[in-house]
């Protein structure tokens, strides 16, 4: 299977990331809606009054089903409002980072699909992507994404070396 160029792994990944680029914002709005419902509302509303109240009612009934999960959720609801706001903001930062990571990955794979490998543009995109992945791994304390960040760091340097060679090659007629 081809890895670079038209109809290759890169073009498949580029298309996949293009879809994700739309899925992530929609999913994040949905998650934000559910989380704010859990975090900032009480159960005193009458479920028959509005559609939203009914949704909340059903959500909480669902949650009550599994005792352990419900306890977790209840614990979150008992936190100080400031902490709850902070948790929601952190989630926002997460999603923004993820969105940027997906966007930059898509740009890279677009270039790979067009057989543009060693170029200054790719080096810039990749070094930005690397920074985002490392920030993401530090925020989420995720070891495997830190490993990914280190590999991307070295990949950036390899691409930088390759770009210098490509430049020489382009001026060797």
């Amino acid at each position: 299977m081809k890895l670079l160029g038209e109809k290759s792994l890169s073009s498949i990944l580029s298309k996949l990331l293009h879809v994700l680029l739309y899925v992530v914002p929609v999913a994040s709005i949905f998650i934000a809606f559910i989380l704010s419902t859990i975090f900032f509302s009480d159960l005193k509303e009458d479920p028959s009054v509005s559609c939203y109240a009914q949704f909340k009612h059903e959500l909480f009934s669902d949650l009550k089903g599994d005792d352990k999960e419900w306890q977790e959720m209840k614990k979150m609801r008992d936190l100080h409002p400031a902490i709850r706001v902070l948790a929601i903001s952190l989630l926002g930062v997460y999603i923004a980072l993820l969105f940027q990571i997906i966007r930059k990955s898509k740009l890279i794979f677009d270039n790979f699909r067009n057989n543009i490998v060693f170029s200054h543009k790719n080096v810039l995109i990749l070094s930005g992507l690397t920074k985002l992945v490392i920030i993401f791994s530090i925020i989420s304390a995720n070891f495997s994404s830190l490993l990914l960040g280190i590999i991307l760091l070295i990949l950036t340097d390899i691409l930088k070396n390759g770009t210098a060679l490509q430049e020489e090659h382009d001026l060797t007629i």
Partner: protein
Amino acid sequence: MSIIFRLDRVMADRKMSLNELAKRVQLTNSNLSILKTGKARAIRMSTLEAICRELNCQPGDLLEYSPDDENTNE
């Protein structure tokens, strides 16, 4: 750059256009332009050979070294 590529002179002698030469030596027009305008950083032996063959000339007709100012100041 004190190596000058005298492609236009030889081409004028042989009455060959840039497009014609590009097609014959299997280079893109833009690459041949880079060569002609002296922007090339290096030249392939295969390119030099193809040009010499098609223009029926020697590398000495194409390449010229002229010691430039900074050299005489040394």
